[in-house]
């Protein structure tokens, strides 16, 4: 019983090198000389996020909110949309900030972000997704795991659609691919197609 063919990559976004792509179209391209924090600020303005909580978040969550906002804008998705995200560096970007503060005053507002799955919580809050969540750590983008696991939760009825992807942040270098997977669309949800979306503009 292969139901996999019923699932499609309904939409996808890519964030890399000061650019944001929707499917394969550039929707935002910023000056490559700006630093990472400026990129996060400028993207927020240019994409008219209008979500003040964004400014309190750590950088990994900001990337997740930027990506999911572009991904889900105008999409018809259900509250039962699971989140299946992965990366290599966990929350080390903010872990390092927490660690540097340990000699003096530790901030709970920083510490709370020192788990990779907090970005799942932030996306769930913004889109009121009371759904299955998981964060996997992988040494590199692994389409096999994302497709295999997303399929198990879709086929078992634990979710109706899935946002899956890769959200890596290390030394201010970021690399994001998010996909909305559902019954609607033209691109079959396969490892090859997911891999292709990741490789695009990523050579």
């Amino acid at each position: 019983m292969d139901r996999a063919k019923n699932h499609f990559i309904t939409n996808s976004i890519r964030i890399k090198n000061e650019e944001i792509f929707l499917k394969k179209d550039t929707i935002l391209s910023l000056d490559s000389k700006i630093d990472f924090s400026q990129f996060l600020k400028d993207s927020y303005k240019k994409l008219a996020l209008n979500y003040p909580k964004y400014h309190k978040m750590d950088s990994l969550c900001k990337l997740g909110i930027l990506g999911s906002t572009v991904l889900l804008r105008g999409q018809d998705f259900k509250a039962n949309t699971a989140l299946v995200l992965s990366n290599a560096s966990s929350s080390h970007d903010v872990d390092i900030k927490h660690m540097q503060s340990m000699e003096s005053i530790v901030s709970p507002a920083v510490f709370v972000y020192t788990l990779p799955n907090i970005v799942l919580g932030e996306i769930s809050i913004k889109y009121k997704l009371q759904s299955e969540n998981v964060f996997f750590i992988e040494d590199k983008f692994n389409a096999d795991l994302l497709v295999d696991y997303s399929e198990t939760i879709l086929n078992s009825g634990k979710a109706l659609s899935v946002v899956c992807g890769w959200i890596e942040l290390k030394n201010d270098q970021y690399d994001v691919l998010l996909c909305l997977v559902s019954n609607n669309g033209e691109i079959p949800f396969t490892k090859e197609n997911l891999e292709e979306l990741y490789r695009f503009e990523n050579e």
Partner: protein
Amino acid sequence: MNILLQEDIIISPLGFSTSENLKAIKAGNSGLQFHENSRFPNGGFYAGILDASLLADNFSVIGDSTKFTKLEQMMLLATQSVLNNNELDLSETALIISSTKGNIDLLGNSKNFSKDRASLNSLARVIQEFFGFKLKPIIVSNACISGGLAVAIAKRFIQAGKFNNAIVVAGDLVSDFVTSGFQSFQALSATPCKPFSKNRDGISLGEAAAAILVSNNKREGTNISLFGDASTNDANHISAPSRTGEGLYKSIQQALKESKLSASEIDYLSAHGTATIFNDEMEAVAFNRAALFHVPVNSFKGFYGHTLGASALIETILTKHSLINNELYPSLNFEELGVSKPLNIVQKFEKKELKTALKTASGFGGCNLAMILKKSFNG
């Protein structure tokens, strides 16, 4: 397809095997002790910390303790123990690793180890290569539900036909990183933690490793199956539990539904019970909404402290043994009920016929997990 919870081990301050841990629990011994630490105005804090030299002694049977971090030693020993008792083909046995922070303190001061040893990928690779697992390890890092979610993920993949056997290994340390963070939250208890009690004032941290074989191969005798499981995000707050217990309630409903069971068929409930004011209250609300207030319930945090990414696996293993042994273990340090809804807290060791249990967990990021364990006899 029946997914069975088979060989298991807990490595903790209470012992280096599941039986040693159970013996300590039955004797009412806690792993929580006062440890000196200059971060604290009163000179220290209560935590469950594993004796490093005792660990190294135990580890020396399988390897050179100087080559591995404390957490690696714990998780390698746990994996070894499960492998010892099984003839598993490592070319097709999955390895699923669960941890929240792994060797995080190496990120700052890596001492004898390279800094990249701090990454969970490195931790997984050490375990994979030590034993020669051929499949790429799956690493789950989903806050305090990680250890249980990893078991649920093993079940889901086995049901989907990805593999037949998975070893789930979980571990976390009482790191300076985590201690300083929870201290900044003012979430640490001044005494050994008192889950669900009126005078509870926060968590105690603990460290441990655990491992379990999840398999679809039936054994003769008593089998414990993972019947249903569900995880639901609160979509409410990243660090505060939902006041309505929404995500936990929904997780329980979904897990019951998958199991085709009703709340009245649950004989025992193993709660998360961290002993923070808000967590325990949230659980009481969710359990009452799910009509579970009459079910005997305990928290194991009084024995271990909060072992983060290991806790839900340790407690799943203990729940499994409660079912096998028909035993209810007391919720250590419980005094007077201090939540707004009724709960049937287990206050003393009790022998009782048990068939079905519910294990729950909740964590930062708004995550919640419910798992239904059921006993069957294969004669």
